[in-house]
């Protein structure tokens, strides 16, 4: 059968924990763990590196041609 997601422990300063704890309920979360997970995911997502689109100019020109032929572009 499937296992539930694994968890690990992370240490954060007690004072920070207490401040988060105050916010947890008003932010609509059930626990500090849940809140911290949410915030970290949000931060990581916003930090993710922009990757360059991988298609060449030639390829892009081909795509544009098709879009023009189909009437999507003038």
């Amino acid at each position, binding site marked *: *059968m*499937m*296992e*539930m*997601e694994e968890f690990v422990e992370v240490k954060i300063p007690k004072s920070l924990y207490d401040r988060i704890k105050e916010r947890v309920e008003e932010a*609509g979360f059930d626990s500090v763990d849940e809140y911290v997970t*949410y*915030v970290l*995911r*949000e931060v*990581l*997502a916003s930090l*993710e*590196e*922009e*990757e360059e*689109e*991988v*298609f060449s100019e030639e*390829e*892009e020109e081909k*795509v*544009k041609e*098709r*879009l023009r032929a*189909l009437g*999507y*572009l003038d």
Partner: protein
Amino acid sequence: MVSKPHGGKLVRRIVAERTRERILSEQSEYPRVQIEHGRAIDIENIAHGVYSPLKGFLTSDDFGSVLDNMRLSNDLPWTIPIVLDVEKPNFDEGDAILLYYEDLPVARMHVEEIYTYDKKEFSVKVFKTDDPAHPGVARVMNMGDYLVGGEIELLNELPNPFAKYTLRPVETRVLFKELGWKTIVAFQTRNVPHLGHEYVQKAALTFVDGLFINPVLGRKKKGDYKDEVIIKAYEALFKHYYPKDSATLATVRYEMRYAGPREAIHHAIMRKNMGATHFIVGRDHAGVGDYYGPYEAWDLFDEFPDLGITPMFIREAFYCRKCGGMVNAKICPHGEEFHVHISGTKLRKMIMAGEQPPEYMMRPEVYEVVRSFENPFVE
């Protein structure tokens, strides 16, 4: 900038022409596996990056993680298991196999893993029910007993009568860029547009550069509008009621799962891969019957701060006789007695009876199109 593909990079799994020719000439050397239409469509979507970052069908660690956590094992949001089932494998892990839809070799697959699964658990976790009357559950119950995980390479597209309307993520991305749109809201649909849809779309468009209407073409249920009717109806609506430089229409092929909230997230990811920055989440999005609450899908988006596409929650629109226009519950102060709710079912009945719906329900130009078909519905 248009949205970054889910997972950072747009997947493309299409074999080079020479490799393709070689594989096709050596077809008989591969174990041959028959797949159904919906799986062939999944393969197209994997190959063209609609399902980025998936490069193939899920292996057991990802499958389990999607069921339990609504995320791939690398923590990336993913709510719908994209799996390939077989009755009894005629191949081993490590083999390369060819997947056929009818007589067409659709893809080569590198079998990484063959595993078993629990259909009831699959159903309850994805559809929140194991009621066999639910079309998604019924499908799972009919699946083979083994799942096959591994990467695919596309050999052939399925025939597509609507090829000229079907744009791939590379194409929509270039299109949005050429149109100069930086923010794009996508709308998913399987219906002929009524005034309620138009209101929701235009309300969303107010806040972004462009509106991307993306009807889903695929297997239909009896009584659904035919694909061609949906496309033609939208073309009529675009011609008469939509601003030319800020709205566009293209279709995508996809087999509906009817998984409600989970599928709403999946639909958003597909449109993120196509370049949309925003996604309209409708009332009872991707639902069926009354298995899901009307706005349950809205809540699920809270669990995905890292989705990378912004959901837009726009309430169901209705006509208010007192306001004299299309409104929603948030902005209209009047009582139910003034409200006319536009239901797809009601419109369908009127159309079947040859009765023209009032203009506050359906644009006459749209009705004209629907009426021009001898039978606009799937039999």
